[in-house]
């Protein structure tokens, strides 16, 4: 990462010299500007020049397409103590506070991505212009189990009011880290002028001149009258999302509320104290790890050979059920190539085609004309990729691939199976998507002993074009996500069958901070599918995956728990048992090479099951809490072959 620097240039204007400051790192937009040690070193000289000059105003902006994306996340994984955290936080307060105290109007000209510390820098200016094209504006800190501690929790409520501050700092980060667009930032009062990008810096300079002439911007006092209600509602939403498992959102709410009474200096001190607690916390460290796993490792496509992918000009989908329909829609929309469906009876195919055409035809009518389907195999002729999503039975799938191979001998044959052997069914590889396909980004790309490099590279290329994230796994029953979740389910079923209630097993898992109760997830996946996966895993590993009469009951449409004994456990005991089982299963996944590293297990759980960043997927949490040590005698990070 290149060093960040602040460049100061003098611009003549009718009100006097304007300081035009650029925060830059000398790279193009693909390497956004961050605020790390180098930035603060560069800022020392800048602030002195600003304080001692004859300036009429300042405009602070970023290099093309980027304003500033905040603290360098690599730096905070190196934070080991509360003192380190305190020092970094103070450095920001010291610098930003001096910018806020400048005796002339200051304008942050937000020309591009403006995140975290970058946004705090902007909030320390008197006013903000924003380019209409900005789509990344927000505070991701709480998503990473920390808080915006360079004045963000104090200035956001003072500038835009507590309701906007709560949305920006707490609610949005917990909604899959939702960021604001420029019009939204304006609407919330976080920006003062929405400007077209074409002459953005020129017009921001003109705005600064205007401010210098008018003496500054009029801002009403924030409305604190509803603060108690706002906090109560926000806390309840936070509880729903994280169940108390990470402190950051709660602390952020306290700090926002504090801004009503505190001076800015008191607010800074409160942020420093809070950051001292949070930055070195296991949740923050796990989040930084998860960020690295998701944003770096899986984006690079770990473990993929360097060969050219095959061009995909026609795709076949076997099946016309719910999953097949979703997959056909995705392929059509993202690849924009002909897609053909095949199922046993024409009315079922027609129904799927109608759904797909309705979905894709809205924006691009031609897409509705290049999807077709029928009951014959010959329509797969000329396909480059055929993906199967039919009933989960090995014999059926073997028949499917034999037929497809016959009419499309050169096609890459892929299966969306969730638990069967890819190789045994005669597919070249697995592309395991997660339901709902539109929401969950993960695709487990399953390699068998026969998968060629070209097939694998093509699979990853296609997954990328589908805007999904591929993680490489090897052919083993249920791959990673379903295997881990099912292993956990065996613990929960065991508890239920020994006297615990569904409320207790749900609470055991929710208290980890997972987004969804296991009983709800089970209904979403479908008990029939879940039981089928369990059966497959039982066949392979009978000791670790005992069959469950209760789950079988659910699968048959019943709701009766089949009690086998009376060994009722506390919620905490259930949670510990579940975690130990997961640690043990993760070990087996690594031993068998199903996942190459613990990081790949985590990537799968984060992207495919919505596991939170603050658990670091799950293995980071298991390592941090000593579960791995207890079960394996060492951490899973050490157990994996390649450290992240």
């Amino acid at each position, binding site marked *: 990462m290149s060093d960040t620097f602040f460049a*100061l240039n003098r*611009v*003549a204007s009718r009100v006097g010299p304007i300081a*035009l400051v*650029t925060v830059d790192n000398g790279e193009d937009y693909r390497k956004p500007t961050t605020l790390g040690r180098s930035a603060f070193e560069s800022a020392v000289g800048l602030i002195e020049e600003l304080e001692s000059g004859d300036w009429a105003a300042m405009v602070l902006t970023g290099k*093309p397409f980027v304003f500033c994306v905040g603290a360098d996340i690599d730096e905070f994984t190196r934070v080991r103590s509360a003192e380190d955290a305190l020092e970094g936080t103070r450095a920001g307060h010291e610098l930003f506070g001096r910018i806020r105290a400048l005796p002339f109007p200051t304008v942050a000209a937000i020309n591009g991505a403006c995140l975290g510390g970058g946004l705090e820098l902007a909030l320390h200016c008197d006013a903000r212009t924003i380019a209409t094209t900005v789509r990344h504006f927000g505070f991701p800190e709480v998503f990473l189990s920390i808080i915006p501690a360079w004045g963000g929790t104090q200035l956001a409520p003072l500038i835009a009011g507590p309701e906007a501050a709560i949305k920006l700092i707490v609610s949005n980060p917990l909604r899959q880290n939702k960021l604001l667009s420029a019009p939204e930032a304006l609407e919330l009062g976080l920006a003062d002028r929405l400007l077209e990008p*074409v*002459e953005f810096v*020129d017009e921001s300079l003109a705005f600064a001149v205007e401010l210098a002439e008018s003496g500054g911007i009029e801002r009403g006092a924030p409305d604190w009258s509803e603060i108690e209600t706002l906090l109560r509602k926000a806390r309840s939403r936070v509880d729903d999302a994280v169940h108390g498992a990470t402190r950051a959102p709660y602390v952020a709410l306290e700090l926002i509320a504090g801004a009503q009474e505190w001076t800015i200096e008191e607010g800074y001190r409160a942020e420093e104290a809070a950051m001292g607690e949070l930055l070195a916390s296991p949740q923050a460290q796990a989040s930084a790890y998860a960020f690295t796993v998701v944003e770096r490792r899986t984006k690079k496509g770990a473990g993929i050979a360097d060969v050219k992918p095959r061009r995909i000009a026609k795709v076949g989908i076997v099946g016309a059920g719910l999953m097949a329909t979703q997959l056909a829609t995705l392929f059509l929309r993202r690849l924009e190539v002909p897609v053909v469906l095949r199922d046993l009876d024409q009315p079922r195919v027609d129904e799927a085609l109608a759904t797909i055409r309705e979905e894709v035809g809205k924006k691009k009518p031609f897409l509705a004309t290049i999807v077709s389907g029928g009951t014959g195999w010959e329509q797969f002729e000329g396909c480059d990729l055929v993906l199967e999503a039919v009933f989960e039975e090995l014999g059926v799938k073997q028949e499917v691939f034999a037929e497809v191979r016959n009419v499309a001998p050169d096609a890459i044959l892929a299966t969306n199976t969730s638990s069967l052997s890819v190789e045994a069914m005669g597919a070249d590889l697995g592309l395991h998507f997660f339901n709902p396909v539109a929401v969950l980004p993960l695709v487990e790309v399953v390699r068998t002993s026969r998968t060629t490099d070209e097939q694998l590279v093509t699979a990853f290329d296609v997954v990328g074009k589908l805007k999904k994230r591929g993680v490489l796994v090897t052919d083993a029953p249920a791959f990673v996500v379903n295997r881990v979740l099912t292993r956990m389910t065996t613990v929960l079923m065991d508890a239920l069958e020994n006297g615990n209630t569904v409320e207790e097993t749900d609470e055991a898992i929710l208290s980890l901070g997972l987004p969804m109760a296991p009983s709800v997830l089970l209904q979403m996946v479908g008990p029939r599918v879940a039981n089928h996966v369990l059966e497959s895993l039982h066949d392979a590993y009978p000791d670790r995956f005992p069959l469950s009469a209760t789950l079988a009951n659910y699968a048959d449409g019943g709701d009766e728990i089949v009690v086998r004994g009376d060994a009722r456990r506390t919620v905490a005991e259930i949670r510990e048992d579940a975690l130990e089982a997961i640690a043990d299963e993760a070990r087996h996944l690594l031993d068998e090479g199903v996942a190459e590293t613990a990081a790949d297990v985590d990537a799968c759980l984060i992207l495919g099951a919505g596991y939170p960043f603050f658990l670091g997927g799950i293995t980071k949490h298991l390592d941090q809490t000593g579960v791995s040590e207890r079960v394996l005698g060492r951490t899973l990070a050490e157990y994996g072959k390649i450290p992240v």
Partner: protein
Amino acid sequence: MRELREVFFVDGVRTPFGKAGPKGQYWRTRADDLAVKAVRELLRRNPEIPPERIGDVVFAATAQVGDQGLTLGRDVALLAGIPETVPGFAVDRMCAGALTAVTAAAGEIAFGAVDVALAGGVEHMGHHPMGDDVDFNPRFVSERLIDESAASMGQTAENLHDRFPEITKERADAFAVASQQKAGAAWENGVMQETVVPLAVFSDAGWKVADRDEFLRPETTMEALAALKPAFRAGGRVTAGNSAGLTDGATAAFLVSEATAGVLGLAPKLRLVGYAYAGVEPHLMGYGPVPATRRVLEQAQITLDEVDLFELNEPFAVQVLTWCDELGIDAGDPRLNPYGGAIACGHPLAATGVRLIAQLAYGLRERKGRYGLTALCIGMGMGCAILWENVG
């Protein structure tokens, strides 16, 4: 018989001109973005002209590739926010690009094809060094169709010195010093404020505002120029000091029909009286404006004495001096380039023409003059001259 429609020049604006190359102010700015800035400023200064009323956008560039490719007139119009219903095209006549854009647009107006036209030019000589990517046909040399030196503009300037030995290096240097001094004064007295729009540009040292011509050196002296080495040949007379540097810049202008000026309530500055292009020996390309000037005066039946202002391009001092000697105008005539010229501000090939017209309009208004002439020479041996009447 259909009647000819009169064509008026409403307004013209330019970016400051920059030094081509990595050290110039526009090194990290795209050529089309420079043009967009000039166009948007023109639209801003002329709010009476609704952008959807523009009938055509004509843009010139010599190198029509890269950030000057993609049919500039259309590209720039869309990038500037002009409605997509307004068409555009690109023209090239090297140094006379912008003047050709203006006369082509004027033709459309005179014919009744459009009522309002936007014409301009851009040249980013830093991104597009002269002759880059040009593949000269070997027949030019093997069949002696042209003298080899015609391909190098500096050589053609030396050729003028050879042809007219009475134009010495001293005369050229004196002309250059005067050009710099007049340009320096022009930045103080208002003409540049009226015709130049500053713009923020990104650089290795952050965002800056380009608000001056980078070649401007009002402090230039004869002694300093005398010390400069010849740029194009041993013993030559053409130096960096008495010629225009390689330049980046853009210009844009509005032209309208007489009737439209009335309908929209515009206050046009100039009436287009006539124009002429002429061809000369390619290796003496600087001579081109001489026959072009004679031809346009003859068309309009106007004598040189009746012309109150001359805005001539100054790629080389010797080129202007040749024109002066041939037409009998003293190089110090106050009617000639009163605000300096390309020696002081630079010459971004296809952009220059509109600068000349905008300054001519300002000058005629200041002097309450009637007729004015803009002229320049063109590579491969051509010249252009346009005669205007002050209606401001």
